[in-house]
């Protein structure tokens, strides 16, 4: 692992006083959070507390929702992204996303991986081939699919499809990977593979992962943010949050007393 780039004081993204509204109902209240470069940050909290909403603010996916509104600031590499003039398509190439439900396209495995490159207009066969191999290798899928790259992606197992979606995001060479409960639709073995994968990707990409699984958070993440009713209640290193939470609320949640 590339240890040189690991410095918890270097932040790739940072939100300041972020409020978010779905129509008239407010879903996030003044969330300020720094996301350290090349570390894994976990977002935890009870259902409906705004984890997904926050995650989708980071690549402006919430733009798609009618009558939604984001107030406050998010910077990405020093650039403000809560700005109507921003090129969101470039932002989304740099801040990739993996969804709870694997969503491969009805195309071949190869075409799935290079989807982002095709969108960006890259045509060189050698670049495409090389990207496919590198991305699938990083997503720990290469060995399983290298003989059927032109076969349909819809024939893969659930766990393989999810890793394909991760490979697809990696192929864009993003700086940040947002993952919204990436393993919650998978069986324990596939979940373990995804967790291994996240551990391997740590240090190469900044990962923000939403999870309901406390063990998962402790296994894969370096930092943890605890959300409650749209508020970031507590944020710190995973070790600190899980062994020595400052807030009583956090302690109650991680010890399973509610949520």
């Amino acid at each position, binding site marked *: 692992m590339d240890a040189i780039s690991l410095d918890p004081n270097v932040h790739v993204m940072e939100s300041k006083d972020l409020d978010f509204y779905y129509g008239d109902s407010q879903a996030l209240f003044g969330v300020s959070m720094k996301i350290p470069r090349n570390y894994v940050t976990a977002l935890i909290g009870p259902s409906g507390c705004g984890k997904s909403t926050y995650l989708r603010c980071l690549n402006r*996916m919430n733009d798609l929702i009618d009558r939604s509104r984001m107030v406050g600031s998010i910077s990405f590499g020093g650039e403000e992204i809560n700005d109507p003039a921003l090129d969101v398509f470039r932002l989304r190439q740099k801040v990739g996303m993996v*969804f709870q439900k694997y*969503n491969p*396209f009805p195309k071949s495995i190869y075409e799935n991986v290079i989807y*982002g490159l*095709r969108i960006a207009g890259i045509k060189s066969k050698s670049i495409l081939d090389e990207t496919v191999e590198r991305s699938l290798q990083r997503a720990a899928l290469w060995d399983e699919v290298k003989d059927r790259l032109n076969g349909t992606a819809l024939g893969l197992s*659930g766990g393989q499809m999810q890793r394909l979606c991760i490979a697809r*995001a990696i192929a864009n060479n993003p700086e940040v990977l947002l993952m919204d409960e990436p393993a919650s639709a998978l069986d324990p073995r596939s979940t373990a593979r995804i967790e291994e994968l996240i551990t391997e990707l740590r240090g190469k990409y900044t990962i923000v992962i939403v999870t309901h699984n406390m063990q998962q958070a402790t296994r894969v993440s370096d930092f943890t943010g605890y959300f409650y009713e749209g508020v970031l209640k507590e944020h710190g290193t995973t070790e600190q949050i899980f062994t020595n939470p400052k807030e009583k609320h956090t302690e109650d949640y991680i010890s399973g007393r509610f949520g």
Partner: protein
Amino acid sequence: MDNSNSETINIHAHRSYWKLGEPMVWLSGAALASILAIAVILVFVIISNGLGVFWPSPVARISLLDGGSTIGELTQRQQKRDTGAWRQQIKTGNRDFNSLDFRWIEDSDIKKITYPANIIALERMEFGNFYGFLREVNTPSGQFSKDLNSQFEKQFHFIAEEMEKLEDMEDDISSLSNDMESLRLKKQKLEYHGVASGSPELAKVQAEHARLQQEFEELLIKQSNEINRLRAYTATFEDISGKTKSIPFLDIVRYYYPNTMSFFQKVGFYIEKLWELLAEEPREANTEGGLFPAIFGTVLMVIIMSFLSFPLGVITAIYMGEYAKDGVVNRMVHIAVHNLAGIPSIVYGVFGLGFFVYGIGGTIDTLFFPERLPTPTFGSGGILWASLTLGLLTVPVVIVATEEALSAVPKSVKEGSLALGATKFQTLIRVILPMASPGIMTGFILAIARAAGEVAPLMITGVVKLAPTLALDSSFPYLHLERKFMHLGFHIYDVGFQSPNVEAAKPMVFVTTFLLVMIVMVMSSLAIVLRNRLKERYTITGF
């Protein structure tokens, strides 16, 4: 205790019977079965009435008790309501002698029915079938009354070959007359634009026209000489009553000996008739001969219709489904489109007449063909206007199907594309449309089926009972969209209900219906095969 226990069980059993919905399952099963039965009966009725037509039936000789006799095909039997007596319908043919093709004879009047081997049946260019006996073959080189059947066959084939040459001549004549017509239009145009009558341009056209005119007249004379020569080849026939008639070979389309044909000869005859149906032109006010122009018109119309209806429908649905903001206007448009699908088709026909034919067609005429006015070019019904009218009629079908297909594409896949940096348009082209394509194809299939079967709007926008020329031919610009055309659906109506000889036309009605059903089925099967391919490729399993 015992008692209450059994009661509980009873109640339980009773409720589960209804809860399981057993009666509903039966009911829906029965509904499905009856719909299937109706479909099967429909196809069966059409096929049994339509496909039997070409099978050569034997020709009977019926001796009557009063001493007379008649010959013809036995067609149907009927019981009289008052007396309960049976009567037999006979297709006697020989319209030139009897004036009617059909005759009813009471069973009680019949003495004997036989099938003489020497009866010959003729299909003729006019006056329908002839049934009778061959007596003589006459050629310019002599008369034959011995070895008649083989002589007849020899002369028939000789004339058939000669007739092919005649047809070539006919083609030359019609292409000449086409050329003359375009020269005439050119001259008209020049005059309209005020070219002086002595100008060299005009003189050239006139000279050319005169040259063609001469060539044309020579050919006509040659043709009529040729026809006169061939008309001298005749055969003399005798009908049952002993009347004789001499018929030129030129007028005989086909002959057969119905009572001595072997099974394979019958099969051959049947195939020949089927081929005639598909490939030849109609004869005798459409009641005989082929349906090729009508088949051609139907298919061409559906194809032209598709070029309007499919792109327009799909693009509209994409805008409504993916781009338009949900609001009052969008919802009203939505409702309007759904209602459009329910408007009676004749209303579209009237609209097509007013808008396309008189409006657009009339404007084209005044702008581009003013010299021909008041003779309309595009300003009267034609295949283009009829197709466009049907296009409008089927657009709502395509829109509704496409909208449904688009909204069935999982949101997660759209988001997956957007999250990789794709724009909405890229997502539409690369992901949404391919995934929606099977559903869109379903809309196409419905539209094709509806368009191929519609008749009412065509009747006022360009269909005719007999079109002199196809909309596609070898004279420039090859595709003549302003021309009138024939259509199978209209053909059914015309032959079955407008023809002077309804009884004789009845088989043609069923045959034409069968063909129409076949064409719709073939076209939609092609689309269904395509749809299933797309489905295999783009259906997401495991979601």
